[in-house]
């Protein structure tokens, strides 16, 4: 995208158009800071962590923030949402603490972790108000709820559960046979993704198909294959565990 933008600028007579070809991935990989937009921190579907002491938090914090004092930050691992794709924004009045917590949270497997440096200054400069009193509380028994937004072709966890219970869908399990045999959704048929093209005729057409795998990556590819073939299909972008008994947990 950026080379094309620079090409347009050049065409319009801008003499000094450059491209940072490596872009955001390289910037982050080399350890440099990024920042979120303030409106996103205010209204986005995100989790906010405040690392300051409970006293500082009481005096004023960004609304919706959870309190995770930096010195006990390791406990946050058990309180953060189950979904590793939940965006997590971390701030403090101490940049080192923010950096430490960002690193730790990424290490726990969260994919969208952003440090919000000089958060309180920027928040106030924008004219947004702080909330006084204790921050929101979360721990291992009160895990932060998070529901991801549904993208094209996806089915929400809630809809999936309902449709499955009402026997309205046929689940297509795109994992390996071994995974499938160790536990799967009720009534699910198993075609591993790498065999999908060749075994497409085995997929029944009388029901709406929902593809799933372990994390959703294979599910999305399978979804696109089946869509091309004209199936009525969606995919489940979620992590799940299925017991041999047929019980399951999705998050």
């Amino acid at each position, binding site marked *: 995208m950026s080379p094309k933008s*620079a090409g347009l600028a050049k065409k319009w007579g801008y003499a000094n158009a450059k491209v940072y070809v490596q872009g*955001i991935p390289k910037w982050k990989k080399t350890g440099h800071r990024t920042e979120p937009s303030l409106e996103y921190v205010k209204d986005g579907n995100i989790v906010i962590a405040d690392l300051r002491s409970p006293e500082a938090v009481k005096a004023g914090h960004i609304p919706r923030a959870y309190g995770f004092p930096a010195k006990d930050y390791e406990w946050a691992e058990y309180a953060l949402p189950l979904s590793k794709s939940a965006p997590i924004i971390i701030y403090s009045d101490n940049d080192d603490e923010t950096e430490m917590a960002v690193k730790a949270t990424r290490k726990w497997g969260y994919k969208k972790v952003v440090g919000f440096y000089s958060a309180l200054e920027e928040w106030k400069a924008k004219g947004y108000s702080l909330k006084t009193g204790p921050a929101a509380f979360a721990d291992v028994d009160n895990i932060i709820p998070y529901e991801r937004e549904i993208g094209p072709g996806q089915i929400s966890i809630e809809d999936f559960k309902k449709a499955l219970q009402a026997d309205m869908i046929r689940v297509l399990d795109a994992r390996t046979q071994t995974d499938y045999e160790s536990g799967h959704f009720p009534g699910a048929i198993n075609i591993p993704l790498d065999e999908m093209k060749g075994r*497409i005729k085995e997929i029944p057409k009388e029901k*709406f198909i929902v593809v799933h795998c372990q994390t959703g990556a294979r599910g999305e590819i399978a979804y*696109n*294959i089946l869509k091309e073939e004209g199936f*009525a299909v969606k995919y489940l972008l979620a992590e799940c565990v299925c017991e041999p008994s047929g019980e399951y947990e999705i998050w």
Partner: protein
Amino acid sequence: MMFKSKKAVSWLTLILFMAGADCVAATEKAAVKSEPVKTAAKSEPAKTAAKPAEPANVISAKGKVRGISLTAHTIAVDVKNQGFLVFKLNERTMYKNAKSAEDIKVGESVTVSYKPIGADNVAYVIRKNLVKLPEGVTEISTQELLSLVNPHKGDYLLIDARPAVKYKEEHIPTSVSIPFTKLKKEGKSLLPDDKNGALIFYCGGPT
């Protein structure tokens, strides 16, 4: 009777449920497409003649990666005029401009040389396409950019060309959001009046 009415209800719900889906009725479209694998038959002879080193009947396709699963050794690519093609990777698959399949990410542009075997398109070579900069446009390195951003030297405009939602989630400090699609549509009024100042564009990496 009980059974019938229950069925009617669940079909109604199913229809409502399907209304949100971007799908077509399963039966009709599937019947038309009986070929399990899309083969670009027309381009076959020309390609093989040009590349004698590769196995016979190798076809090449260029497009954007839509999905990749290392677990299932599968890569899905959106190919212009052909739609969505799925390739299988194996231990003989070769990579150009990438060390392995792990270096290939969703959204990147690749050229795949493949051969249909049975129901599968087996990838022989996956080439990650490198970015070609338009003439007169120069590249800026991470170090150079860092020296402008931190500490902030005001003499440039850093432009995030990604979709606005991406910018909101996170961006390089001091940047402004002008998505490529917006720039293309709304034109140069989005850029500063001074045509000699440095404009630096970035996005989500080489695509």
